[in-house]
């Protein structure tokens, strides 16, 4: 029996670490295919409800258009601590990293005495930054999205930038107003928008020729979209319109019908409003008539890929399409126009991320100077010229290089365009919308039932946000 035990013990000691490893609850820091909060480049709408739509478009630009550094503008330079060393951190693939290395080089021309230590974190950025912030080792300057703003804003972990902006001769008025909404708290600016994205109607011209239809134009309405999608679906060579159960893609329909996911003060969910129900009925009607398919229906990872594979005629996608198609489906001809006009007006949804400064930074002036410089007009002009992202300054929208990208970018200027931001629990509200759509798509619930449930869930999330200090 003694021998028995010793052998078993050996087996046991072999197995226990293995089991522990299996059961280990470590947040695996790998580049996982299920993006919970997609830290891809220009705020690709985090497709949280549909994690299977995994192939999120990686925006990576062959940086063949690197532009020489901007001319120095001494009046924008603020005095900083001598010999300051600041750490700058953000997500992003190699293309994005190159964009920011170039930005740092331009910054150093104006501020030769500041050393910027760039430490990109490509995966699980938000989680890692929160952990670093708790332990006091967070970077001095870092990317801020709505999740990080929620975590850091109320607790004073971010430095208000307004005074430094005044000193540097810039102001909130220099930026596209909608972009600042996420980063504003009690009238103070806690991060500056570094870039933004929006949606356009991307389409495959050959599908329209095949069905004998005219190509979409900038003055299309929902009815035109519907008619074309149904005609193409009826022809059968291509599917009509590709759209998943996704809050981001649904948002232009909601906003274009005069709806919103929540009231402007983020206290009341408005998902059971007639505007939303109507918009949802329109989308679901397309689905029921066979004019709307999901990417999975046609065997693609996401709708942009469905265009690249020539499976669908139309979809709502953003500027990340440009490089995705260029790199993966170079021979595919596609075009984009601004989104069709809704019953109430032209609308689109904006995704944005900002750059903020750690309130605990040892060199707050240098850090603020860097955040202001990177998001400033000169540097944004350089970035937009690379085709990597849109400038956050309204007068630079028309600097977008690619014609399709430029058409998509126009969505940012529509009257009803807004950021789908609803306060600290934005993620939960948006999730409720995605899940409601998914239940309807599945045939589980009617539009009214699904959005009544979403309304309850979203209201609970908004109440929770109100009750947490």
């Amino acid at each position: 029996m003694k021998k028995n035990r010793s052998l078993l013990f050996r087996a046991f000691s072999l197995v226990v670490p293995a089991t522990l490893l299996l059961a280990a609850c470590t947040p695996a820091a790998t580049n996982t295919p299920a993006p919970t909060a997609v830290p891809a480049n220009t705020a690709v709408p985090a497709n949280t409800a549909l994690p299977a739509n995994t192939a999120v478009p990686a925006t990576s630009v062959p940086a063949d258009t690197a532009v020489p550094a901007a001319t120095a503008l001494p009046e924008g330079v603020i005095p900083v601590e001598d010999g300051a060393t600041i750490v700058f951190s953000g997500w992003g693939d190699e293309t994005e990293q190159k964009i920011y290395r170039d930005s740092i080089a331009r910054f150093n021309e104006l501020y030769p005495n500041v050393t910027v230590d760039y430490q990109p974190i490509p995966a699980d950025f938000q989680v890692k930054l929160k952990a670093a912030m708790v332990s006091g080792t967070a970077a001095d300057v870092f990317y801020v999205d709505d999740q990080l703003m929620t975590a850091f804003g109320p607790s004073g972990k971010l430095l208000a930038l307004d005074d430094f902006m005044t000193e540097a001769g810039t102001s909130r008025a220099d930026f596209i107003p909608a972009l600042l909404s996420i980063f504003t708290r009690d009238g103070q600016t806690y991060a500056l928008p570094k870039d933004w994205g929006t949606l356009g109607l991307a389409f495959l011209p050959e599908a329209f020729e095949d069905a004998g239809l005219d190509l979409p134009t900038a003055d299309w309405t929902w009815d035109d979209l519907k008619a074309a999608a149904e005609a193409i679906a009826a022809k059968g060579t291509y599917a009509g319109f590709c759209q998943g159960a996704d809050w981001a893609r649904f948002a232009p329909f909601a906003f274009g019908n005069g709806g919103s996911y929540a009231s402007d003060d983020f206290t009341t969910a408005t998902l059971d409003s007639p505007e939303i129900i109507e918009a949802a009925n329109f989308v679901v009607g397309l689905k029921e008539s066979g004019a709307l398919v999901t990417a999975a229906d046609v065997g693609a990872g996401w709708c942009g890929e469905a265009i690249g594979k020539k499976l669908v005629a139309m979809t709502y996608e953003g500027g990340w399409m440009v490089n995705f198609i260029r790199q993966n489906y170079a021979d595919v001809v596609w075009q984009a126009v601004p989104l069709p006009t809704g019953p109430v007006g032209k609308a689109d949804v904006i995704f944005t991320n900002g750059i903020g400064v750690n309130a605990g930074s040892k060199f707050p002036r240098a850090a603020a100077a860097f955040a202001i410089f990177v998001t400033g007009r000169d540097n944004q002009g350089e970035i937009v010229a690379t085709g990597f992202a849109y400038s956050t300054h309204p007068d630079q929208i028309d600097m977008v290089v690619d014609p399709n990208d430029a058409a998509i970018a126009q969505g940012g200027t529509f009257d009803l365009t807004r950021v789908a931001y609803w306060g600290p629990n934005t993620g939960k509200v948006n999730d409720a919308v995605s899940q409601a759509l998914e239940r309807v798509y599945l045939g589980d619930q009617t539009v009214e039932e699904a959005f009544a449930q979403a309304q309850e869930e979203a209201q609970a999330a908004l109440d929770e946000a109100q009750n947490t200090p």
Partner: protein
Amino acid sequence: MASAQPARPKIFKTERARQEALTAYLFIAPYLIVTVVFTLGVLIFAFYISFTSFDLFTSPRWVWFDNYLKAVAPGGDFIRSLVNVLWYVMIVVPFQTALALVLATIINVKVRGSQFFRTVFYAPSVTSSVVITMIFWWLYLKTGYLNFGLTKLWGLFGAEWTSVEWLNNPRGLFQLVAMAFGGDIPSNLWFLRGPSVTWMAIMFQNIFTTAPTFMIMFLAALQEIPPTLYEAAAIDGANRRQQFWRITIPMLRPVLLLVVVLGTIGTWQIFDQVKILTAGGPLDTTLVPVYLIYAEALGTKGPSQMGYAAAMAFLLAIIIFTFTLIQRRYIESGTEQY
């Protein structure tokens, strides 16, 4: 020993014994300190946090049992995750235990090459679960190998296979059965729908990955069963099946307990696969407690709710503890304890 002076009770009989004990404590000190600080200390802190509202960045606010009440509120995410994981435990544990036992029995037969199969069977267990999960991700994609293989297989019989979105199919097992008969289970009775297709896909992966680990344990135990027992049984006229049920299984009981307990604890704590493959979707059908705790603690969709997460963690610990106790009572009756 009885002396007049009120000396403090002697713990060690001799000075040498005392020295030895001190040395022993000195040797285990590094581990002990690490455990006390990073396990016990953290545990106590988490217990305190579970009674507070804490977002990581502002100081904790005492809220009594709010977090626990929120967790057990009907219709909440935690309840939902418990139902999901319960399906998981009930299906994965029996299957992986049975598979492990079968594999061990097969491998225990001394034939040429059994060493090779031992290694092959064990391979999934020594591979990082993240890596295995990535491999299964490729298998399960709508355009992945599983659908590809099934299409080919169906094609052999002249039928057509409709590709299944293994990782994004919220339809439940019982719901599918109901649908086959033209019915459906409404979404307000979601708990009757059974595990979703996606959830079952993850179960399959986990059975595949974990069974070999337990196979090794069964194998070790199998080899310790004295051959004389089988010989005696054979002489008494017991056939193979009788030998298996009357000798092998009873002799394996202690290991069986170990395997079931470890399996249960492991399945209650499933995390990696969910984080990598589904993030709790589709429609929360793969939402599990540990993933929910992770998401709430780090605030992936809203502010961090450390207190709520800690409360759920303690509730989960209580549940696992209870399950383990029940299993012990049930399996161990009359056998050696581990």
